[in-house]
């Protein structure tokens, strides 16, 4: 028999539209950390100092400079074969075509379009992690290199030495400007038009300078991901994939012109991205916008200009910081020019750039990156469900706020310790006097501690 209870009608109206209670939808924020965020900065600095002392005492001779071991992995010859490379290249070209088409024929709203998520998360952030873990995978999948190798010309002119990696640095600055300042990311068609323009430019440059030369120095993404791949324990040598000690690809980096600039762009742009998420920059940006509009620039354009200023400032600050550290190292003597020191230690900035990306974009990749699952099922916005994932929701419980913070701190500390090791090892080669080498590293230690605290401060800013 059905239970029946009285339904009293004379109750107060249950108007739930505006009760005087707190938010009903408050998100879980980072909370209850066992120690304050600032203390993490001190702890990280102490770890670096201890690492520095340990290196000085226990690492008296260079270990990473004179080449490294290489051991082919099972199936390494197959993975590195030309056939696999052709297949990977074809996949890369197909993905490029899909992205371009998605940008033009898919939804006009970025959130609902495959192209922005693929370009700005899967490709831009995801490949950084993939490169640092698996090696130079982008070299195999690069659509531009794959197409370029089909072109008739393999170089009409020699590549000017003085250009070095400057084209890549410039390309990276423009890409990050598009990502962080332009607002084009909100317009899929505009974003892929930029990608199409880059494709044309790259193909022309490959015809003029040769595919491999341009890939090595000029093609922004090839150069960018290659730098991170040098951290990886995997390397392809003579078409065979094998293992090597982690980081051992970095001492072999040729510090051609533009390499320092490129690293400064890499770190500086992430620095600005982190800074721009905090209250400090937001308040400053409002003031700067007032200044910009006061000189007659329309309010609609002012935020873009202010962001551009911030982006350039971020790069400049990092460049000045590195320059100051090198000037300090130069002051200890040894007869090495500042320019030589700048280039000699630039490889040690790569792990720093890596952990800046890893720490700053970790949750972006883990959370927003999941969007690619449902977008890939319907890349052109036609109502398809190719992989049965069109309704897949983003799982924000994948990593807790505190878990993300711990992972970010760990990334930052590990990356800077790695940088210290690389710099210490290089100093032992540069200076014939071990004491001088250690003294020069006081300054590198200062740089590393500075970058570490900056990274943690930026992360804390973004969390406020």
């Amino acid at each position: 028999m059905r239970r029946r209870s009285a339904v009293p009608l004379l109750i107060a109206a249950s108007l739930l539209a505006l009760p005087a209670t707190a938010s009903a939808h408050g998100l879980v924020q980072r909370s209850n950390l066992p120690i304050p965020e600032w203390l993490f900065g001190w702890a990280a600095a102490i770890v670096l100092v201890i690492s520095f002392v340990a290196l000085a005492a226990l690492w008296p001779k260079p270990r990473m400079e004179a080449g490294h071991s290489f051991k082919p992995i099972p199936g390494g010859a197959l993975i590195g074969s030309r056939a696999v490379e052709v297949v990977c290249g074809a996949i890369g070209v197909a993905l490029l075509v899909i992205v371009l088409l998605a940008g033009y024929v898919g939804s006009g709203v970025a959130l609902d379009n495959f192209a922005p998520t693929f370009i700005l998360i899967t490709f831009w952030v995801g490949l950084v992690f993939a490169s640092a873990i698996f090696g130079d995978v982008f070299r195999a999948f690069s659509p531009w290199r794959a197409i370029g190798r089909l072109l008739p010309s393999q170089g009409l002119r020699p590549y000017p030495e003085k250009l070095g990696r400057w084209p890549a640095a410039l390309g990276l600055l423009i890409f990050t400007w598009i990502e962080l300042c332009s607002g084009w990311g909100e317009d899929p068609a505009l974003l892929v038009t930029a990608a199409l323009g880059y494709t044309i430019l790259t193909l022309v440059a490959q015809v003029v300078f040769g595919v491999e030369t341009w890939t090595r120095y000029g093609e922004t993404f090839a150069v960018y991901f290659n730098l991170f791949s040098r951290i990886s324990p995997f390397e392809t040598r003579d078409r065979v994939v094998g293992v090597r000690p982690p980081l051992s690809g970095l001492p072999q980096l040729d510090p051609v012109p533009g390499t320092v600039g490129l690293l400064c762009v890499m770190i500086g742009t992430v620095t600005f991205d982190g800074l721009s998420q905090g209250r400090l920059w937001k308040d400053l940006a409002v003031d700067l916008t007032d200044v910009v509009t006061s000189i007659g620039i329309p309010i609609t354009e002012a935020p873009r200009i202010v962001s551009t200023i911030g982006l350039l400032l971020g790069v400049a600050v990092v460049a000045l910081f590195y320059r100051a550290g090198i000037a300090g190292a130069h002051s200890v003597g040894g007869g090495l020019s500042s320019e030589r020191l700048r280039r000699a230690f630039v490889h040690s900035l790569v792990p720093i750039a890596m952990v800046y990306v890893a720490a700053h974009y970790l949750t972006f990749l883990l959370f927003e990156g999941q969007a690619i699952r449902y977008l890939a099922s319907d890349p052109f916005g036609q109502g398809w469900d190719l992989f049965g994932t069109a309704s897949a929701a983003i799982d924000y419980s994948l990593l807790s706020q505190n878990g993300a913070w711990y992972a970010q701190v760990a990334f930052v500390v590990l990356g800077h310790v790695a940088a210290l090791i690389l710099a210490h090892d290089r100093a032992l080669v540069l200076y014939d006097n071990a004491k001088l080498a250690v003294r020069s590293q006081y300054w590198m230690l200062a740089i590393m501690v500075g970058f570490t605290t900056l990274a943690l401060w930026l992360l804390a800013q973004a969390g406020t």
Partner: protein
Amino acid sequence: MAVIAAVIALAGCGGGSSGEKDTARNVPESGGLREKVREAGAPAASDFPAVDGRSLQQVADSMQGGPEVGLAGQTFTTGDNRLAFGVIDPQGKFVYGKTAVYIAPNPSAKAQGPFPAPADVLVTDPAFKSRQAAAEGDLFAAVYGADVKFSKPGNWSVLTVTQSNGGMLAAPTQVKVIKPSQDDIPAVGDAAPKVETDTVASAKGDEESIDTRIPTAPELHQESFADVVGKKPVALLFATPQLCQSRVCGPVTDIELQMKAKYGKDMTFIHQEVYKDNDPNKGLRPPLEAFNLKSEPWLFVVGADGKITQRLEGSFGIKTFENAIKTAL
């Protein structure tokens, strides 16, 4: 090349997201929720007992009690009204099933109804789901909405009835009905107040200051209402995703984003946050005061002539939002 041609052809044929889809497709299947919401979406008056001259209390006495009603709005005038609500069980969980509404000026008065209250889905496509919506512990998957007519001003007793596990769960509530002349909120047919709304530019790039959605939706803050009203159709939504103070306000900003993806070429979509400095203690922002709003969320759909073609208070689902948009196209 064939694939490229096919895709372009598809796009040319009006593909995109314009096709009619099952709005419940994104409701989780777990616990049979999706099926319950689908079923709740198509009630008929014949699914519920006729009043047969009984009073509202007598109708209520024939039902099982237990749940509560969470009204999504508080502005009701004599005449036609949309009564939106959620039904919440004693454990605080939302109840989904075929639902209808009975009304009467007081419990002992003759009941009117049943008025079917189809459940309108609130769960957007994944691309438009905010972190707030994704972080909801107890998903508010659909809001009930019934078209009811109040014949005179004053307090009215309302009884919602939801089919559940073979029985009828009744939940009472009360609403205050006023004369249209006492309602100072712009109504359908009125010219919309030409008010400046917050844009990314007016906020000098500080998106978080004008949008509590996470992540922010700058797409909905590109143009000020004052700049577009009277020139093209506009959907103006007053809502605060993070500071919404009700369990039944729903992810209406997410739904607006989804609507923009579908109708963005024909209509301007604007979101306006509610509280000054996003602080409920600091009062309402000027655009809400210009519309005389005292609650949120509110949606005003305005035609190209600047006149309001539809207004919705409280939570509204995908179908209701879309139907509102169509009144101005």
